[in-house]
Every structure is written in structure tokens, then in C-alpha cells.
């Protein structure tokens, strides 16, 4: 009876009715899928925007048919105006960072699999869970609303540097209501994420099945747990920042706006504010946010790699500790975004050291992954391919961090395409690879049908090669000094770079198109995919001990008891070369 008491007294009864089942569901699995769907929607929009931007950059005078319908002012005659380019840029960044990179690997997969992997029936607070999704959804709607209002979306980038973002209408088109919507949306998003993170932490701490000690949790559970700890503090800082920004814009306060600014020939009625204050608050959130995006993917990738290698990592603990130390260090490095922004030059050095230090845990993780591959018997699947691709991407994006972590080199590379290449690879593509891997790996469990392997692998090859074709050249452009966030390249020295830009754009269009294979696969397999068995990948963790898809209360009425560390591979088990976590048979080790 003890293990029973270790379980929540039934958190919720079996859901009745369509709404309760699919829309306002308390079931963490449904909520996880909802987050995934939201992320998918957001990523499609974000990708579309990047298409428009890339197209405009290399064919600025070519009409884009139908674009006028999206915005008559922004794209008169289908030609994108400079401010509308910046609108697209801002929305691309905001959608991708908040609604894709924060939602998909963390909220979506975390919601679905964290409770299952620790043997819980649901999250600790199912109602909070539902609230956090719908809050996030509202945030999404508010943000997208900016596309349809006459003012148009804001033009100050996803970092919304004050005072550009704070002085309002005078700063340019989209900086009136468009910018207000941005601030409100992000504030709401913070609340949603805080609720989510709180839920994750409480669940991990208290709802673990009998025998599921912390060190017996799968690596991805650990990743989600650490991530939620970071998110809990990061979004708690962004929220106040947004509130202050909104007050500056609407209530006439002067938190971020100094005296004597003349914008559009108008003297601004503010005084004494500090633009750097915004940058500090924003990046204090902003840098941990990078790890909120990447850590879950690290976890997912490790989880999948181990499964397809059929042997445990050299050391799971080291990975976990590395993730912790990255999470810890991420609080001391925000200033490396501000090397040339007028901070005290000494503090630049102060921020530079911990930044460089982060390379140590990162390198350790990479070496653990690589070393574990040695002597393995890797099963090549779409999932494992994307996992391996993740390592490659992580390395490529990581080494460029070497440059940007040094203030002196940052003088040359700051705000160039080098930076864009760096964070797109390490934060964007890498964590998206984690999401792809997770999708191919868990789709069967989530829907009861397997995804199509052939399409999956085709999707991988196109995406893998494509992303390198897009983002590697960014670094070259940066080295020459090509500035980011330009809607047209009017500088004398950018002329010779246009062929490279054309190449990037074409690669982007192709790679983007390749993603439709994935979306098609998602939909097609949902109906036509071959039925998924309980444990198609011969996995060891708890999610493989229950039917696919799992029943509403995950484990039915039985409460799993955990006997082993998560990854008992390469051993003689009753089922094969592995032993399930909840199987009482003795482990080899």
C-alpha cells in the first residue's frame, strides 16, 4: 500500500466530453501535444518570415505576389519596405525564441514525458498545467495580433532595446500599438512559463514513483528539471522588465528613457532613465534563455543516443553535472552581450571569463557523447540521425562562441552575421534537431503509430546539409564585417558578398521546403503509419512500459516500482540486450 500512498490520490477522473478531452484538458499528455502543436504553428510562421526576409535581401526589387494582402503599407506592390523587413525580423525572432525554442523541447516533450518517466499519473498541479498552456496560447494570439493592426508589428528586434522600444510611435512604424502588443504578449508568456516551470519542479520533486531516486531519473527528465529551475528565475526577471517597459510606453514613466531625446523632431517628455538598465534586465533573462532552449534538447539527444547505441553513456552523472554547471554559469555571463554597449570595460572582462568557462562543461558533454559512441552498435534511425546531427551542430555552433566570448574579438564581430550564424546553429538548429529527434523517437508512443522512416531519413539529409549551407556562410559574412539586421546591403563592401547571400537564400528556401516532408510525415503517419508496439525501440525507461498511446492515467491502476538506473543496455535481460527500469530482474552492473 506504500507505493500507492506515494502516488497522488487520483488527481483527476477520466475526462468526459470533447472539450475536457482535447481542448481544456487537465491531462499532461494532451497539454504536451497542445504545446507541440503551438510550437509547430509558430515555427511555420517563423520560417515563412525568414523566407520573406532572405528573399528580400537578395531580390529587393522583385515583387512578392500576394504579400500586399498581408500588409498594404508594409509591402506596397509586394515590395517589402525597410520597416516591414524589421517587423518580420522582430516577429521571426520573438516567435522562434519564445514560442518555438522554449515551447517545443521543454514545455511540449517535458509535459508529455516528464510525469511518465518518473512514474507519475500526472503533473502535480494539473489545473496550473492547463492554465500555463492557455496563458501561453493567449500570449501567442496577442503577439500575432500585431500583424493585423494598422500599426503593424514592432521593428525593434526580439531584444527590444530601449529607448527605441520605449519612446513609442515616434520611433517608427509599428512602435505604437505593435510594440505594446509585443510587451503585453511577452509579459503573459512569462506568467505561463513560470506556472509551467513551477509545475515541473514540484512534480519532479514529489511525484516520483517508488524507487525512482533522483539519480535514477532519465537524463532528459534531469534536463527538463534543470531547465525549469532556470526558467523559474529567468522569466521572473523578464516579467518585471516588460512591466517597466510597458509603463514607460503607456504611463509616461522614465525607467529606460533618458532626458533630452529628440525622436522624429519631437523632444521626448522623459528624463533620467537608463537604457542600459533594460539591456541588463533583458540579458539577465536572455542568456539563461539560451540554455532553456538547448538543455532539453541535450537531454533528449542523450536519451535517444543511449537507446540507439545500445549501451549506456560513459557517465550519465557527468552529463547531468555538466548541465547543472552550465545552468549555474548561465547566470554570470549576461554581460557578454553588452561588451561594446558602454558598460564599464572592466566588467567586460569579468563577464568574459565565466563565458569562456562555459566551454568546459560543454566540451565535457561533447567528449562524453563522442567517447560513448566508441565501441557502440549504433542503430541508424531518423531519431538517431538527428541526435548525431545535434552533436555536429552543437560543436559547430559552440566553437564560434570562442570568438564572441572575448571582448577584444567582439569589437570586430559584434552585431555581424557571425553572431547570427553562431546562435542560429547552437541555439536554433541544434535544439530544433533535438525536437526532430524526439519527435521521430516518441511519435509512436504519443500517437500509437510510428512515423515513416524513409521520409524521416530523407528529411534528415536535406535538413542536415541544408542548415550547414545556410548558417556556415553566415560566419564568413561576419568575418568580413557584414552587419546584421540590415534590410538592404548598401555598404560599399557588401557588394562582393551578394553571391554568398544568394547562395544562403536559395539554401534557406530549399531547406525550408524540405520541412514540408516532416509535416506531411506527421499528418500521414497519424492515419497511415504502422501501429506502434508498447516498446518499439527496445527502450528501458518507464515510458516504454505502458501502451502506446498511454491511457489517460498513464500506468492504469498499477504503480510502477523502479529497480534500476535508467539505462540498462548491453546486458543480458529477459527481453533482449536491455532491462526495463521497472523490471525486478537483477541488473548486470
Amino acid at each position, binding site marked *: 500500500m506504500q507505493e500507492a500512498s506515494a502516488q497522488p490520490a487520483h488527481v483527476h477522473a477520466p475526462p468526459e466530453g470533447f472539450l475536457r478531452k482535447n481542448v481544456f484538458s487537465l491531462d499532461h499528455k494532451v497539454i504536451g501535444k497542445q504545446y507541440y502543436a503551438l510550437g509547430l504553428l509558430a515555427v511555420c510562421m517563423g520560417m515563412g518570415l525568414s523566407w520573406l526576409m532572405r528573399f528580400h535581401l537578395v531580390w529587393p526589387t522583385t515583387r512578392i505576389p500576394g504579400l500586399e494582402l498581408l500588409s498594404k503599407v508594409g509591402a506596397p506592390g509586394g515590395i517589402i*519596405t525597410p520597416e516591414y523587413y524589421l517587423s518580420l525580423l522582430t516577429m521571426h525572432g520573438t516567435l522562434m525564441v519564445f514560442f518555438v525554442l522554449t515551447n517545443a523541447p521543454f514545455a511540449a516533450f517535458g509535459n508529455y514525458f516528464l510525469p511518465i518517466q518518473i512514474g507519475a499519473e500526472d503533473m502535480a498541479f494539473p489545473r496550473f498545467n492547463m492554465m500555463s498552456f492557455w496563458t501561453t496560447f493567449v500570449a501567442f494570439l496577442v503577439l500575432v495580433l500585431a500583424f493585423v493592426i494598422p500599426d503593424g508589428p514592432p521593428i525593434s528586434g526580439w531584444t527590444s532595446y530601449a529607448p527605441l522600444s520605449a519612446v513609442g510611435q515616434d520611433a517608427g512604424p509599428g512602435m505604437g500599438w505593435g510594440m505594446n502588443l509585443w510587451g503585453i504578449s511577452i509579459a503573459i508568456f512569462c506568467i505561463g512559463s513560470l506556472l509551467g516551470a513551477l509545475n515541473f519542479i514540484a512534480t519532479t520533486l514529489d511525484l516520483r514513483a517508488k524507487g525512482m531516486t533522483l539519480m535514477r531519473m532519465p537524463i532528459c527528465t534531469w534536463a527538463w528539471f534543470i531547465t525549469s529551475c532556470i526558467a523559474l528565475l529567468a522569466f521572473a526577471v523578464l516579467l518585471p522588465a516588460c512591466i517597466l517597459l510597458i509603463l514607460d510606453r503607456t504611463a509616461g514613466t522614465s525607467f529606460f528613457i533618458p532626458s533630452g531625446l529628440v525622436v522624429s*523632431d519631437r523632444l521626448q517628455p522623459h528624463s533620467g532613465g537608463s537604457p542600459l538598465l533594460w539591456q541588463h534586465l533583458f540579458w539577465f533573462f536572455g542568456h539563461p534563455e539560451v540554455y532553456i532552449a538547448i538543455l532539453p534538447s541535450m537531454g533528449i539527444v542523450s536519451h535517444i543516443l543511449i537507446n540507439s547505441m545500445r549501451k549506456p553513456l560513459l557517465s550519465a552523472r557527468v552529463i547531468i553535472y555538466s548541465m547543472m554547471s552550465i545552468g549555474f554559469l548561465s547566470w554570470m555571463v549576461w554581460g557578454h552581450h553588452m561588451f561594446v554597449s558602454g558598460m564599464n570595460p572592466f566588467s567586460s572582462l569579468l563577464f568574459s571569463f565565466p563565458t569562456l568557462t562555459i566551454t568546459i562543461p560543454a566540451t565535457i558533454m561533447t567528449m562524453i557523447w563522442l567517447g560513448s559512441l566508441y565501441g557502440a552498435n549504433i542503430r541508424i534511425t531518423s531519431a538517431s540521425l538527428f541526435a548525431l546531427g545535434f552533436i555536429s551542430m552543437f560543436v559547430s555552433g559552440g566553437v564560434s562562441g570562442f570568438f564572441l566570448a572575448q571582448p577584444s574579438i567582439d569589437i570586430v564581430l559584434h552585431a555581424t552575421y557571425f553572431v547570427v550564424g553562431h546562435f542560429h546553429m547552437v541555439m536554433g538548429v541544434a535544439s530544433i534537431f533535438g525536437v526532430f529527434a524526439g519527435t521521430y523517437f516518441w511519435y509512436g508512443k504519443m500517437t500509437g503509430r510510428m512515423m515513416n522512416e524513409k521520409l524521416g531519413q530523407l528529411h534528415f539529409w536535406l535538413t542536415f546539409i541544408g542548415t550547414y549551407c545556410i548558417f556556415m556562410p553566415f560566419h564568413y559574412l561576419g568575418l568580413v564585417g557584414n552587419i546584421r539586421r540590415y534590410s538592404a546591403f548598401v555598404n560599399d563592401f557588401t557588394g562582393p558578398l551578394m553571391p554568398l547571400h544568394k547562395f544562403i537564400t536559395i539554401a534557406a528556401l530549399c531547406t525550408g521546403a524540405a520541412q514540408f516532408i516532416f509535416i506531411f510525415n506527421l499528418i500521414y503517419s497519424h492515419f497511415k503509419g504502422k501501429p506502434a508496439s508498447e516498446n518499439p525501440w527496445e527502450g528501458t525507461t518507464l515510458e516504454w512500459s505502458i501502451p502506446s498511446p498511454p491511457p489517460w492515467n498513464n500506468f492504469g491502476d498499477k504503480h510502477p516500482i523502479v529497480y534500476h538506473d535508467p539505462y540498462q543496455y548491453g546486458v543480458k535481460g529477459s527481453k533482449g540486450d536491455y532491462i526495463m527500469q521497472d523490471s525486478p530482474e537483477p541488473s548486470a552492473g
Partner: protein
Amino acid sequence: MRIKHIYLAGVAILAAATMTSAVPGGGTVSGKITYEGTPAKQKPIDMSKEPSCAKQYSTPTTTETVVTGPNNALENVVVYISAGAPDDPAPSQAAVFTQKGCRYTPHVLAFQVNQQLEVVNDDQTSHNIHPLPKVNREWNKSQPPGTPPIVDKYDKPEFIPVKCNVHPWMHGTFAVLKNSHYSISAEGGDFKLPNLPPGKYTVTAWHESYGEQTQEVTIAGSETKTVNFVFKAKPY
């Protein structure tokens, strides 16, 4: 394309001259705008940041806040009937404001309330048009080369400063007026308000740097009254 605009502009000017509440063969108010004192020195404009414009000028073009002519003539002064004449319906022709060589032509564009305004970009670069009205609705739009003209109208009379956010030196004025009796002092500072029906009028002269002056004038029959304005010029 360009031909059309010049044609349109021509029509607009023509229209300004012969319009509704004006009665053919009515009275005329004419005169000369001059200044006294030393006007501010007009400075050369550095367009080096916009090569496509800079290369259109052999010697750098200068600012146009105070444009003067021989013997103290003052140009770009809007002279109009501020009181006494009834409001006129807007003419059908559009007033055209052209951006050429990173300058506004005309520097001061006068048109009527609810008359259609067309902003045209004749440059190879992308311009931004940001009129800064106080009573009318504000807008701020960019106009890449090869995009259709921006069309708009204002529903309240006002003198509206216009600026290009991309090229800080580009400044002009929209003079939005109630009736069709207006004229902009040309070279030599001369102006002419023809076809005025008999009556008592207030004639106002407005200059972007020197403000405005008014004079009363009474027209009986088809006479021609002369009204001169003298503005005080300051070196700074």
C-alpha cells in the same frame, strides 16, 4: 511614369489657379514678399551617405529654410485668404509631392482640405515620408523605389512639417488650406490671388521660418489690390 507625374503636377497647378468659388474676372490681390535684415545662411547639404543622390549634384545643394531672390525677394511664402472667402470643395486633381535627388519638390506644397495628395519617389533609393501634423492624423511610411505613389488626404487645414526619417536633411511643408485662393511666392517674391468676388478679406502670408503676417483688404468689382509683406530676417 515620370512624364505622367509632371503632367499631373501641371494639372494641379492649373487647377489651383482656376477653381470653384473663384469668379472669372473678379478682383485680384497681388503683391511682393520681401525680407529685411540678414537671413540665415543656407548651408550646403552633405549627401555622401546617399551616393545615388549625391552624384546628381555637381556642387552640393543647399538647405531651403529661407529661399531668397534678387532685391530681398522671399520665396516659398504661402499667401492665402484666411478669412472672408467661403470654403471650397476639393478639386479632383491630385497635388503631387515628389522626392527627387533626396529633396522635396516642391519644398512647400499647398493643397486643399480633402484634396488628394500623391507622394512620388523618383529616386533609386528608398525614402520615408513622415508628416508631423498636430491636428490631422499622423502617418509614417517608407517608399522603396518602384513602389506605387502613396495617396492620402487631410481633412483639417494645417501647416504640416514633412520629414524623411532616412535622410535627415529632407524637410518640406504641406500647406493644407480651406479654399482655393492661395499662391506661393515664386522667384522675385511675387504672388497673385485672382478671381476674388467682391468682399472683405484677410490675406495671410506664412513662412516656415518667419511665421505669418496678415493684412485686411477689401475688393470691389474687378479691381487689383496690391498687398506687400515684409518679413524680419534673423542671421540665426
